[in-house]
């Protein structure tokens, strides 16, 4: 098991997500940056749905209570095992009592920590992904115990992987959302000609964008929303829904981010720039 000495800013356990309950109002949840999380699981030869730890900006301090192999990915937060720096996408053997710490955020926003065979917090409605009202915990706190199984017999096929990170990318590929056609030429121009800044209102539910575009008086009935949906408020604010975002909404859904674009934006933080690009 893993002992949480310090929790970090916002640390959670996440797997692929919770499928099959959207019609009951349960968001999919799951790791925000699927690209990075899948890579760390793959390197460890883990099952597809193995749960990883998602770390946001400021890392935790963790103590391993059983030997296993770990792999880090996503944002680089100056990780050290027993004071020795370790790098992303490289298998690291850990022993009982080893301590993992994080330091300064180098790039990206969300880091992933995977162990051999995944973390074993309780499965609730088919998933281990933390979510308020579904799992007992909605984020990791100081003193938590996160179970995993000891593994000393693992024979890795590959020890490290070269991964081209998405941190420098600012372009978000989008397709038109259901209400795209309601946009005026002027609104479209603002949407695509200019870039946007990530506001400080950003979390696992949604990323709000700083700059406004000319607003609207479109009234629509509440309808389903998805991770990656760009909602457009009457005042002209753009809200990009994320993995914990609510399953229905009443704002026009003007754009839908591609899977790649979701991975890109989830590594952005307050003040970072993005730009929409219409995919055809």
């Amino acid at each position, binding site marked *: 098991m893993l002992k949480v000495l310090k929790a970090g800013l916002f640390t959670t356990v996440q797997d692929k997500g919770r*499928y*099959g*309950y*959207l*019609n*009951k*109002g*349960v968001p*999919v949840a799951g790791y925000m940056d699927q690209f990075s999380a899948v890579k760390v699981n793959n390197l460890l030869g883990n099952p597809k749905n193995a749960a990883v730890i998602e770390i946001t900006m400021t890392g935790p301090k963790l103590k391993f209570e059983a030997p296993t192999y770990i792999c880090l990915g996503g944002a680089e937060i100056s990780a050290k095992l027993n004071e020795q720096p370790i790098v992303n996408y490289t298998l690291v053997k850990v022993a009982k009592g080893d301590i993992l710490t994080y330091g300064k955020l180098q790039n990206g926003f969300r880091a992933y920590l995977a162990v051999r065979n995944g973390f074993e917090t309780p499965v*609730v*409605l088919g998933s281990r992904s933390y979510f*308020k*009202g*579904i799992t007992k915990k909605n984020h990791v706190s100081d003193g938590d115990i996160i179970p995993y199984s000891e593994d000393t017999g693992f024979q890795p096929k590959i020890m490290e992987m070269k991964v081209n990170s998405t941190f420098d990318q600012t372009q978000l590929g989008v*397709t*038109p*959302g*259901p209400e795209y056609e309601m946009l005026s030429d002027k609104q479209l121009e603002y949407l695509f000609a200019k870039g946007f800044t990530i506001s400080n209102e950003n979390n696992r539910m949604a990323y709000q964008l700083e700059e406004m575009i000319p607003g609207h008086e479109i009234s*629509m*009935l*509440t*309808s*389903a929303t*998805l991770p*990656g*949906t760009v909602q457009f408020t009457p005042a002209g604010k753009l809200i990009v829904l994320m993995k914990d975002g*609510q*399953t*229905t*909404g009443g704002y026009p*859904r003007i754009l*839908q*981010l*591609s*899977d790649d674009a979701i991975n890109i934006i989830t590594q952005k933080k307050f003040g970072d720039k993005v730009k929409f690009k219409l995919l055809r």
Partner: protein
Amino acid sequence: MNLYSISIRSYGPHAILIEWPNRVEEAILENILHFTNYLKEVKLKEDNWEMVPAYNSVTLIYRDAPIDFKKFKAMLIEWYADVWEVQPQQRIVWKLPVCYHREFGIDLDLVSEKLNLTPKEIIQQHTSQNYTLYGIGFLPGFMYLGGLPTQLEIPRRSQPRAKVEKGSVGLAGKQTGIYPQLSPGGWNIIGNCPINMFNVKKEEPCFIKVGDKVQFYEIEKAEHDLYKIEEEVGIYKLEKEVWHA
């Protein structure tokens, strides 16, 4: 059965949206539910589709691979024209107990003042209807109910509360509903329902489904406390009956 024209919209790589006329209407909802059932039970039975109905639409979501929109749209149009050889979804009327005691109905006096109705009249109005469940969203198990008497329409609170108790029954605009968990919220709270609208310990965590009906009935505080305990230990039996349109 397919009385209404529909429009089919692309919604990103993993979803497709089917829309009916832009109205809140019982007959439209019936049409949506019947077609959705046809897709679920017959046409898309094998695959891992999620279907989210809400008011005048249903969104079909497929996460395992991207959807070929043009091809799938053509199939949907064809299926919509079929004779749907499937029973419409059975609709249930759920009878939900609500305690309107001031301990729970913290805005009841304010609502009474604003609507110019006595608390007794508010309760009488609120329990007089069969509400229709048009959607579930916002929170797990949060119901979008239609059919609120016009006399009970009241704007949201100008200052939302940071914490609204689980089970709180509220009024806002044309809507009434129950907060399924402790959460922030701006609705005017008139009572509390001791029944879990979402319970992860149950195989079916949310007993109600879109298209069902809700009827509230008044209970005393002592009954509320009792039902809450019964619900906690899993012996409370909800009253329900089959709805016939």
